[in-house]
Every structure is written in C-alpha cells, then in structure tokens.
C-alpha cells in the first residue's frame, strides 16, 4: 500500500525532526555551551571548530549558544502567537458559527476583509501602532492570525451544529455554552490541530521575518531572524553565521509541516 507507506514516512521524519528540535531548544533553556551574550574579542568570526561548533559572530559570541537561545525565543513567540490566534479564533468562530444571524454576517464580513490582507502587513500596522518589541510582536501576529482560525472554527461549527448529537444534547437541556464548548469543540479537534500546525509554521516564519526587519525581538536577546539580519552584513566573510540560524528555522518549519501533512492524510 503506497499511500500508507508515505504517510508513515512523513510522520516518522516529521516527528524525528520536531523531536530533535524540541530537545535542542529545551536544552537551550537550561544550558548553552557559552553565555549567548558573552563577547570574546579574540574569537571574532572564529570558524567552525570543536570549541565553537558553529563558529562565532562579529562580537565573538558563540553562534551555537545564540542559535539555541534564539530558537527558544522564536518558538515562544510562535507559541504565544498561535495561542492568541487560536483562543480568540475559537471564541469568534464558535459564536458566529453557532448562532449565525446578523452578528455572524457582520463579523464574518470584517473577518474576510482582514483575512484578505497579508498577515505580515497587518502585523506591521499593529507594530507601528504598538511599537516594536517581543510582546508587541506576539500581540500583533496573534491578532493577525485570528481571522484564519475563526474561519476554520466557524465552518466546523456550522457543520456540527445540526448533527444529531448536538440536537440530542439540546433536548437534554444543555445550555448554549455547554453545547458549544463541551459537545462541539472537541469534535473540531483534528481540523483545528492541522490548522494549528500550519499556523505555527506561519508564526515561526513571520516572527523570523519581523526580527529580521529589526522590529521584533530587540537586542541583545538572541532571535533567529535578528541573527540572520546581522549575519547578512558579514555574509561573505562568515557565511556560517547566516547558514546555521537559517537551517534551524527551516528544520523547525519542515518538521511541523511534515507532521501536519501526515495528520491531514489520516482524515
């Protein structure tokens, strides 16, 4: 069975990559080979060696340590973003999908209008309103992600609200809130999970993009996007400075997208 093999393959490779990345990041929270912000003038642009596995940057900071911390930052920002997007997306989608009517009509029109705009652009608008910084990026990206989750949850709720088990719950006297969040919500789990996977990837890429532009995580805190923008200046002198952070972003996104693919095929 061809399809079966491919699915497992996606799951195994994706799971392995994601697992390794998580271990890498979690270690980074507790231990890094060097202090990620410690500058060693004698090690400026040190190449790849046993002492510095990924070399050093323009201030002589250990790139591996910074990548470990930076990946953690990126992951946290992405997680926060997805959390905001999912949380408000679920509430918005559940209410509009379940109740319908005028409120649904208006909110969804607004939602569609926002959805039509690229999330980076939205985030930039919010950043220019809120100012730059880590929390601002989380909020800005989170808001920008709400419409896509709301859309998905809404369509699932519309699908589910007329199903027999919901009618049954209603007959037994369950209130609207209970039906929405105890009966229907768990049934949207698979769809939601794959949306979260995709959202997570978009968040990682968006965070990296914002930090790359210098409006996300502020120095000296390490962030993969920020490292890449600094590395760009010294691209020809120390290509390893750019390549390793980039590679880590790619692996993070790749792992999740393979897992997401494996989940989707299972449906």
């Amino acid at each position, binding site marked *: 069975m*061809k399809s079966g093999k491919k699915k497992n393959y996606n799951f195994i490779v994706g799971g392995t990559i994601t697992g390794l990345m998580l271990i890498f990041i979690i270690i980074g929270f507790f231990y890094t080979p060097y202090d990620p912000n410690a500058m060693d003038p004698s090690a400026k642009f040190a190449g790849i060696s046993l002492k510095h596995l990924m070399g050093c940057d323009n201030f002589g900071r250990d790139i591996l340590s910074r990548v470990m911390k930076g990946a953690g930052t990126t992951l946290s920002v992405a997680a926060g973003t997805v959390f905001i997007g999912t949380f408000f997306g679920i509430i918005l989608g559940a209410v509009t999908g379940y109740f319908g009517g005028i409120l649904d009509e208006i909110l969804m029109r*607004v939602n569609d*209008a926002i959805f*039509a*705009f*690229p*999330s*980076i*652009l939205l985030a*930039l*608008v919010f*950043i*220019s*309103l809120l100012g*730059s910084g880590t929390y601002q990026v989380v909020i800005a990206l989170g808001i920008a992600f709400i419409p896509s989750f709301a859309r998905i949850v809404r369509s699932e709720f519309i699908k589910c609200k007329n199903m027999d088990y919901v009618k049954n719950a209603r007959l037994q006297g369950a209130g609207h809130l209970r039906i929405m969040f105890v009966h229907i919500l768990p049934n949207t789990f698979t769809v939601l999970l794959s949306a979260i996977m995709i959202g997570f*990837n978009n968040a990682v*890429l968006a965070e*990296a*993009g914002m930090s*790359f*532009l*210098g*409006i996300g995580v502020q120095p000296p805190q390490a962030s993969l*996007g920020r490292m*890449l*923008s600094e*590395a*760009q200046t010294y*691209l*020809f002198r120390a*290509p390893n400075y*750019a*390549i390793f952070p*980039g590679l880590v*972003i*790619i*692996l*993070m*996104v*790749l792992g999740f*997208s*393979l897992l997401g*693919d494996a989940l989707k095929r299972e449906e």
Partner: protein
Amino acid sequence: MKYAGKKLLTMFLTLFAVTLFVFLAFHVISGDPASSMLGTEATPARLEALREEMGLNDPVLVQYARWAGRFLTGDMGTSYSYRMPVSDMVTDKIPVTLTLTILAFFMMVLISIPLGIYTAKHAGGVIDRIIYIFNQIIMAFPPFFSGILITLLFGRIFKLFTPGGYISYEKNFWGFVGYLFFPALAIALPKAAMAVKLLRSSVIGEARLDYVRTAYSRGNRTNDVLYKHVLKNALIPVVTFLGMALTDMIAGSIIIEQVFSIPGLGRILLTSISNRDYPVVMAIIVCISLLVLVVNMIVDMIYGLIDPRISVE
C-alpha cells in the same frame, strides 16, 4: 455584470473601512501632529494656530473625509522626519515594489503550473517523490533566508549579479529588471512550492470525478482529458491561492527589499515605522491595501470568467 458590480461595491466598502480604521488608529496613537511638527518651538498660541490651520479641532470624521479627499488627489500629507510631501517620497518607490512583485508572481506561475501538472500526471513516480521532498524543504524556507542563500550562491560564487548593486529603473529599465530577477526568485520559490502541491492534489481530486469518466467514454486521449476537461476545473482553487500569494508577495517584498537593498516601499515603510513618521506609514499602508484590494478584485473577476456557475448567482 451584476456580479462585477457587486464585487466592485464590496471593494469600495472594504477600502472605506480599511482607510477609516487606519486613519482612526493613527489618529489615536500619533498624538498631536501639531506639537510633533513644532517640536521645541511650540508655544500654546502657535500650537493652537497650527491646530486650527491643520483642521485638528474639527470632528474626527470630518478630518477623515478631508484626509481621504486629499489622498485621492495625490496629496498624502507631509512627512514628520523629512518635512517633505509624502507623495514625493512614495510615488517613485511604487513601481519598484510593483515590478518586483509582478516579476515574482510570473515566476511562481511559470514554475508551478507545469510542475503541478507534471507531478499530478506522474503521481507516485520517482520524480514526483523527489519534487515532493524539494517542495517540503522549500516551503520551510523563510524568503529572506532564500534571499541570503541566493546572494551567496549566485552573487558570490557564480557572480551572476552584484549584490547591493541596485540599478534604478529611471536609468536602465532592463538592468533594473535584471537586478530584480534574483530577489523575485527568492519571493517566488516558497509560493511556487505551495502552488505545485495544491495544483497536484487539485488535479488528482478532479480526475476522480464522474465527468472525467464521461470524457474518457467518448474516446478522449488521456492528455485531452487532462487539458480540455480536468485542468480548468482544477485551476479554480489554484486561482484563489495565486491571488492570496500575490497579495502575500506584495507584503513579502518588503522583507526581500531589505535583503537585496532595493529602495522600494518596504525600505521607507520600515524607516518610517522606527521614526514614528506616521503620515508616511499611513500612506504606504493605504497604497499597499489598495493594491491588495485590486488584486482580490481581479481574482474575483477571473473566477467569474472561469466558472459559469458564479456569474449567474
């Protein structure tokens, strides 16, 4: 035509809502433009005079109407930091960003449509698998990182272009387009990978439908079934995606402009954000919004052209 009219109306309503939102948001946060303009020279009397002159004492909606009206005539306000008309700063940047985006869009289409059809036709084959793996990896690339790698590879190692050697379109149009080739490629690749995946699954999904069996029953060749029947149907979801990708590219070019030091809208947008130069930020956001809305409008029109079921609605 009724459909087109409806879409056009929606577009103007959205544009109205977006500009109103942008105006109000910046109105609230930007504080008092009069005091930011006067800076240290501010005295209560001068402030009041300037406020009156700028119309800041009028109701917000009146101010919005005035701002929107001026915007339509090309007057986008005055930059706080440069003390020059925003339109002078923005108008010559628009063609740069637009060219970059359009170039990237065509690259995406040229790469993804043939590959999508090929992989669908040979689904399960060796090349299909290889392309699948490539796609997954390319989709994981942040566009600015592909930009960096492209600079490294084509700029440094193969010396196909001079990194940072931007050529203005006013001086040498084809040189300008040539310089934009690689940045456009960096924007196009991840989107092309997604489009290949989508087109492939769309074609495969369509090929299972009943009308395809009907087409075979009339004695069509496989290729004729594919190109005369399946493809148009399979393209419907792809058109939506391409439209969204195009709007994403407009925003994505902001980042890529940084990588390749291209003086487009993205560059001034970023400096203006960090300088809190709100008139410029507003002008650029409104310009990009307008582009996004026009693209969505065009996508809807194309929909109406491809799918007869829509125009009747």
